[in-house]
């Protein structure tokens, strides 16, 4: 009976986007433009701010009654930290907000901002975790006893015994250097005050409802007086999930000056002061038995979380996710871990597609390769012995892995890869001084998790569920208003496919309404690979309710038993007969002839869905050619075998994988945010922060398994982040494989030519 789910129909989003008819925040005209004056020093005391004569310059002193951003975590081991919208007395990183100036155009505002004189007494900054943890380190936030903002620790009861009985212990220390998940559209906000006192904030957001709540709370205004609109949004990757203090300031300015105010972030600001991520050092030690089975795992996670805590996830998101998910797809029973988040004088770290999993997967996959070498096994063989194969599986941290295909997916990737042939070629190539390598990464991806998972983290704001309001109008078209907030994921298409099948109409008759707090029910937006599973689940439930209602009305109109009504292709039919009525006619009658039916008038259904979560899984295999003279890495071939359950739209799924893998390769080889020892940021242009282009990303070979899990009512698992999670480990394992003849090892990403060069030199000496 499925008609639309599983088909690669073209995205409804694209005709406007590819014709340049998208509607973006920066397209809106504004009366005034704001430019933010940012700190040029990493740590300092603001002595005086001197604006040019006649300018409008807002500083902290002007923000009377405005609250600081202070996300909360209900855990004894978490220290909440405050971020004033504009620096109160201290600046804590290069890019910290100091003042806001207004101009008639963006260029005018920038001219004025250039003339604001800042008198700041510079202090010694702490830039990395070792110096932040030093005994005599200055504290980034006065009042904290040290720079540790979260400290989580656990040890399973049998860990020590398993450790003692192990055949051998394998160590692996990985370093994930700081990243920024660059959206093609940087952040932007436009706030328009109207004479009723209401403000409409149009902004690049992934969570419009929560932005409204957060800004209303900060500014102490009624939430009803603020409308938040996320129009077309050019990518987010997490950066537009967390609350930008700039957005709250733009709303404040619009109310203060009773006008429209715009801010369009430039790339320099984005690289400097939008959220960073992935600044992690993870040490793992694996205790293996004589059969190379991982019997106990110890982890130590150190996260440099930057100067402030992002709302709503807090500064604990990266260390705590590493802590909870480190064992990955492996069936290890005993686990000990210490995870710490450390504040420093750097830009705040926040979720970026994959969050800490690219790093923890790198740690586990490097560990497996090192252990394989120690046991004299092939990398695929040690994984066969350790992957979870019995489902459901409960991890040592209490996560429940639903039905999946960790082993089968890896075997699928291996069949495609034909490693036997590759390894022969590798030997031949070495004779010609060409160094080829292959790297495997297997992982599972926790997706589509509802409020129980967030509640377990102790988040003061506990996201998770999604609601949809579904209405069939008198013309027979369906409007689905969702709380999710897609910004490139194609939900207008995939949700329409789900609804179309459940109702019995074509997807072209379904409109998905999102990204407007006036038009959509409260919801959590789009992040954490959740929207298709959760919002899609809610859509399915509501569409099934609508289906039931349509059948009831049709049964009266067709004078047949309700159970005999079939809805398909826009037609209601009495099964096995030629008695039919168009669904559009049922819709018309439900409104204009409601008196005929014992129903509430109209066709509106509401449903919510709040699942526990579901794990998709994948294996990535990278083939690289390392030029040991220039230390350049070329990816020759890249295979992805993915199991994300039911594919709603395979084309969109493959697009998600391609984009994710591209960002994963970027992580593995190119992108890095660099600060110097004084705290200055060195990577503020895309000539310094190297995003890969089409030249650097190889064609991907993508294969699917579709294991259906009852953890997702639509049968689909999330996969929005998987590409970023597996690719770095696959590429790093491949580089290490290529460098084996030199005895060189590299466990830091990005694996830049400089790091490869250093690794080769270290191996030589």
């Amino acid at each position, binding site marked *: 009976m499925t008609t639309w789910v599983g088909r690669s129909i073209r995205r409804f989003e694209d005709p406007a986007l590819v014709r340049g008819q998208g509607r973006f925040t920066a397209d809106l005209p504004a009366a005034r433009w704001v430019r933010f004056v940012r700190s040029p020093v990493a740590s300092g005391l603001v002595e005086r701010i001197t604006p040019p004569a006649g300018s409008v310059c807002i500083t902290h002193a002007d923000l009377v009654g405005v609250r600081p951003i202070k996300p909360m975590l209900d855990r004894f081991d978490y220290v909440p930290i405050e971020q004033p919208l504009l620096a109160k007395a201290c600046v804590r990183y290069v890019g910290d907000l100091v003042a806001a100036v207004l101009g008639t155009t963006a260029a005018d505002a920038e*001219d004025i901002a250039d003339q604001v004189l800042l008198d700041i007494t510079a202090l010694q900054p702490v830039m990395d975790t070792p110096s932040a943890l030093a005994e005599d380190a200055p504290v980034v936030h006065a009042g904290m006893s040290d720079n540790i903002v979260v400290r989580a620790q656990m040890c399973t009861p049998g860990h020590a015994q398993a450790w003692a009985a192990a055949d051998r212990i394998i160590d692996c220390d990985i370093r994930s250097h700081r990243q920024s998940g660059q959206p093609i559209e940087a952040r932007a906000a436009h706030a328009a005050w109207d004479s009723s006192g209401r403000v409409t904030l149009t902004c690049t957001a992934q969570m419009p409802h929560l932005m409204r709540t957060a800004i209303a709370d900060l500014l102490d205004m009624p939430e009803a007086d603020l409308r938040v609109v996320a129009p077309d949004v050019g990518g987010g990757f997490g950066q537009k999930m967390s609350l930008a203090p700039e957005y709250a300031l733009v709303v404040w300015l619009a109310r203060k000056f009773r006008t429209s105010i715009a801010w369009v972030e430039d790339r320099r600001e984005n690289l400097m002061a939008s959220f960073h991520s992935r600044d992690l050092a993870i040490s793992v030690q694996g205790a293996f038995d004589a059969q190379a089975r991982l019997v106990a795992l110890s982890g130590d996670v150190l996260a440099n979380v930057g100067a402030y805590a992002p709302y709503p996830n807090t500064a604990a998101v990266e260390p705590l996710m590493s802590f909870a998910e480190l064992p990955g797809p492996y069936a290890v029973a005993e686990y000990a871990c210490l995870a710490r988040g450390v504040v420093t004088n750097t830009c705040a770290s926040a979720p970026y597609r994959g969050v800490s999993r690219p790093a923890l997967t790198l740690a586990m996959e490097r560990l497996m390769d090192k252990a394989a070498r120690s046991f004299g096994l092939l990398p695929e063989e040690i994984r066969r012995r350790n992957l979870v194969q019995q489902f459901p599986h409960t991890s040592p941290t209490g996560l429940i892995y639903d039905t999946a295909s960790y082993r089968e997916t890896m075997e699928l990737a291996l069949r495609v890869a034909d490693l036997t042939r590759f390894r022969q070629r590798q030997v031949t190539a070495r004779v010609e001084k060409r160094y080829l390598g292959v790297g495997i990464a297997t992982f599972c991806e926790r997706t589509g998790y509802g409020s129980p998972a967030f509640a377990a983290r102790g988040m003061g704001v506990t996201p998770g569920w999604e609601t949809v309001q579904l209405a069939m109008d008198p013309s027979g078209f369906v409007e689905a208003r969702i709380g999710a907030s897609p910004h490139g994921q194609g939900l207008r298409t995939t949700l329409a496919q789900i609804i179309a099948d459940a109702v019995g109409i074509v997807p072209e008759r379904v409109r998905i309404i999102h990204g407007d707090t006036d038009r959509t029910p409260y919801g959590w937006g789009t992040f954490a690979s959740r929207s298709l599973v959760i919002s899609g689940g809610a859509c399915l439930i509501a569409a099934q309710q609508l289906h039931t209602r349509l059948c009831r009305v049709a049964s009266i109109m067709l004078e047949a038993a309700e159970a005999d009504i079939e809805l398909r292709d826009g037609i209601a039919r009495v099964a096995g007969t030629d008695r039919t009525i168009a669904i559009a006619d049922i819709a018309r009658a439900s409104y204009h002839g409601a008196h005929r039916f014992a129903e509430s008038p109209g066709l509106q259904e509401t449903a919510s869905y709040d699942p526990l979560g579901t794990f998709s899984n994948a294996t990535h295999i990278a083939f690289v050619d390392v030029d040991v003279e220039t230390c350049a890495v070329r990816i020759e071939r890249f295979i992805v075998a993915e199991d994300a359950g039911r594919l709603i739209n395979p084309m969109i799924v493959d697009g998600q994988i391609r984009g994710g893998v591209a960002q994963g390769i970027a992580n593995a080889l*190119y992108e890095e945010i660099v600060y110097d020892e004084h705290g200055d940021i060195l990577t503020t242009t895309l000539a310094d922060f190297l995003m890969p282009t089409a*030249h650097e990303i190889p064609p991907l070979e993508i294969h699917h398994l579709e294991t259906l899990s009852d953890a997702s009512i639509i049968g689909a698992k999330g996969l929005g982040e998987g590409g970023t999670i597996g690719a770095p480990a696959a590429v790093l394992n491949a580089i290490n494989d290529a460098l084996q003849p030199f005895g060189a090892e590299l466990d830091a990403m990005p694996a830049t030519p400089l790091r490869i060069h250093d690794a080769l030199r270290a191996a030589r000496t």
Partner: protein
Amino acid sequence: MKPSSFTHHEVGSIDEAVAALARFSAEGGRILAGGQSLVPMMAFRLAQPTHLIDINRIPGLDRPRLEAGELVIPACVRHAGFHQQVIPGPLGDMLATVVRHIAHVPIRNRGTFCGSIAHADPSAEWPVVLVALDGVVVARGVAGTREIPAAAFFQGIMTTALAEHEMLTEIRLPNAAAGQRYGFCEHARRAGDYAQAIALAGWRISEGVIRQARLAIGGVEPTPRRLPAVEALLDGHAPNDALFSEVADAVAHCVTPMEDPQVSASLRRDLLRATTRRALQRACA
């Protein structure tokens, strides 16, 4: 990332451009040709010229020509103009090879050969070609025209022998005779990125041995340069891999590489060694 304000002057002739430059150069007037380096610098406010003298509409500056055995490249010839051979023979072939390393197609469509020379970015390709071939830079100021030899033109990172009030009007490159060989190699992080090492080799083979060897490097030191001492190692010898390795080592040893966060001096030296050897090999291909 909005430029600070400036006045845009469109000029119709080189004389007008030079006059405008004489008037405005002291207060920050600059020539605008393709703008592919200047305009981004203005967006970053690293450059804040108060006057831009736009030479794009001056007739006759957009086509290279052969004149008295020299390829003359006027001020508005775009990089993209070199995708096809500008002249038949080895020089046109070499320029068509080099141009494919310059940034990306949209930048090549706008950016100019002479602009790249005047900008004097140490990682740019055309300056290496200019010094390898001992080309000539023609500069015009209110006082008249002068010719600056390539070896005297580049003085430091983005610093040249051009006076503030002078406009670079054209570049002259000696044409190559049939039988001339070139080999070019550069290393960059991504396709189209700023080069981290560039080598351009050229010679003729006569009676099985290398004659009139030229070897120029770029992207490694603040300015590109020819390496006569190393060229001497090539002259009179039959081309072979052992010789090229020896020459590449010699090149790597005779430079003082720049350092930046992406490339240590040691890595840059190794990059130059590899690009040099590959450029020499390509000259044989």
